[in-house]
């Protein structure tokens, strides 16, 4: 079953900005889906329409088979949303915020309190349940919004940059938590600027730019489309000039770092053979940027040039 279907979704704001230009998108049930794009590409607008925070200009949206124009309440009850900006009452306690949110979805108060304990414990906020939300750190506020979104146990969880401004330790624990949620059957749509996050977590990806979907495939297939990537070699001994290596583009940012661009038709063995021939000893190597990021930049740059 499709968790989300968008057909010819269009949004033109009153100020004339054409935020979405007829996008088509299908997200399968159970998927962990990355919706990527530069700032202002239309991601948040698309999510806003799905969650009914933004009125669409035209097009069709279906959530688990429920058309939002005809069965809005049922469609909404399938969705949990973690927005980009903090949007809870900062003067209420953590516990009140999550219990009330469950109430808005018709969850009886005793059950809401049980779930509040469960999710606040899982997200390491139980000790702060009686704290005023305003007093939480940035990372805690993000986790609170995740706990709040899960209170009615939605079938589709949409996270709009959930890890922005969160330190790496908490980010990793959030990744682990989201993997578990997805593993238990919840479909997840994630937007993020940390492309490493998307590459590690998501099985499918769509890239949106200037209100249009410019790429949509499984993560594996998308990464295969990467024509070339740059590897960084940390050299054991200093080097004064970049070695001439037929078939490869090389550069030497500093005496101990060599960068080599490799196309998807070339092999790393050939690089090492040539490096050995030049008497260059490699201490370690890594991707200059993560692969999805490289592809993302190329696709978006190509779109901008068009």
């Amino acid at each position, binding site marked *: 079953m499709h968790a989300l279907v968008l057909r010819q979704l269009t949004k033109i704001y009153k100020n004339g900005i054409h935020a979405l230009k007829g996008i088509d998108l299908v997200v399968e049930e159970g998927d962990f889906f990355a919706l990527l794009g530069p700032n202002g590409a239309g991601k948040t607008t698309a999510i806003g329409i799905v969650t009914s925070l933004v009125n669409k200009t035209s097009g069709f949206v279906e959530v688990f088979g429920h058309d939002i124009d005809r069965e809005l309440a049922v469609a909404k009850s399938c969705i949990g949303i973690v927005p980009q900006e903090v949007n809870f009452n900062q003067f209420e306690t953590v516990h009140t915020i999550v219990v009330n949110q469950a109430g808005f979805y018709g969850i*009886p108060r005793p059950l809401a309190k049980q779930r509040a304990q469960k999710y606040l414990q899982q997200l390491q906020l139980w000790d702060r349940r009686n704290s005023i939300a305003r007093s939480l750190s940035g990372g805690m506020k993000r986790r609170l919004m995740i706990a709040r979104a899960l209170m009615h146990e939605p079938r589709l969880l949409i996270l709009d940059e959930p890890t922005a401004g969160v330190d790496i330790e908490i980010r990793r624990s959030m990744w682990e938590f989201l993997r578990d949620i997805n593993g238990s059957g919840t479909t997840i749509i994630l937007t993020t600027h940390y492309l490493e996050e998307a590459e590690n977590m998501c099985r499918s990806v769509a890239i949106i730019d200037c209100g249009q979907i410019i790429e949509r495939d499984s993560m594996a297939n998308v990464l295969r489309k990467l024509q070339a990537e740059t590897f960084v070699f940390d050299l054991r001994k200093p080097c004064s000039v970049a070695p001439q290596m037929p078939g490869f583009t090389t550069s030497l940012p500093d005496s101990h770092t060599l960068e080599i661009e490799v196309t998807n038709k070339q092999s790393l063995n050939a690089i090492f053979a040539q490096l050995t021939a030049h008497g260059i000893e490699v201490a370690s190597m890594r991707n200059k940027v993560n692969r999805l990021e490289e592809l993302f930049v190329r696709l978006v740059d190509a779109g901008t040039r068009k």
Partner: protein
Amino acid sequence: MTVSRAVTDWIGFKTILIRETNRIVRIWGQTIVPPAVTATLYFIIFGSLIGRRVGQIGGYDYMQFIAPGLIMMQVITNSYANVVSSFFGAKFGKHIEELLVSPLPNWLIVAGYCMGGIIRGLLVGLVVTVVALFFTHLRLAHVPATIAAVLLTSIVFSLGGFINGMFAKNFDQISWFPTFVLTPLTYLGGVFYSVTMLPDWAHIATHANPILYMVSAFRYGFLDSSDVDLRLAFGIMIGAAAGMFTLAVVLMNRGSGIRD
């Protein structure tokens, strides 16, 4: 609507109500105390000091005459203020989105906020009534008329606060209507005088003021006399409540001021 839908909607409505009531109690220093202080000052100045020199109006001493008007004035102000500040605060702090993404129907969101305004209006009305009892003797002549008048008035002004909150884009805009419309209409709505004391032109003009009908209907409940036709007064209140509720729901459905 299915039974389960009705049950979930009812839980949602109760949740808004709990949240609004908790807010009123949490900030009691802003919601309950100021009306009590203001009413006490009115009773001291207009009732005890000036009232003694005014004499009787319609067979009642001045303090007895103004008490229902002062109660109603606080009901109007507080019903309005509660909803406009709570709703605009939710809009400003973006936590209105908690409700907008939920499956609760828009009419129930309007009703929930409105109910919060009614609760504060009635609570403050009760507090001011208790204050009034320290200054004068009050007797309820018509209990149903009193209850209906205060309830309908608080509904009308709660909805007014909601509509103002929807249109308002900043904090200035939530104070314009109370300052330039609500307060003048309340003061000129027969709270402190009987409209029969006015010259002809002012007497006629005052009848265009809806607050006159509300205050008069409420005063009738206490004093058994009214400056206006009661059927017209209740007709206006019911009509205003129905019209404003419809307008509030239509605005919510359109997403005016809350959805892009």
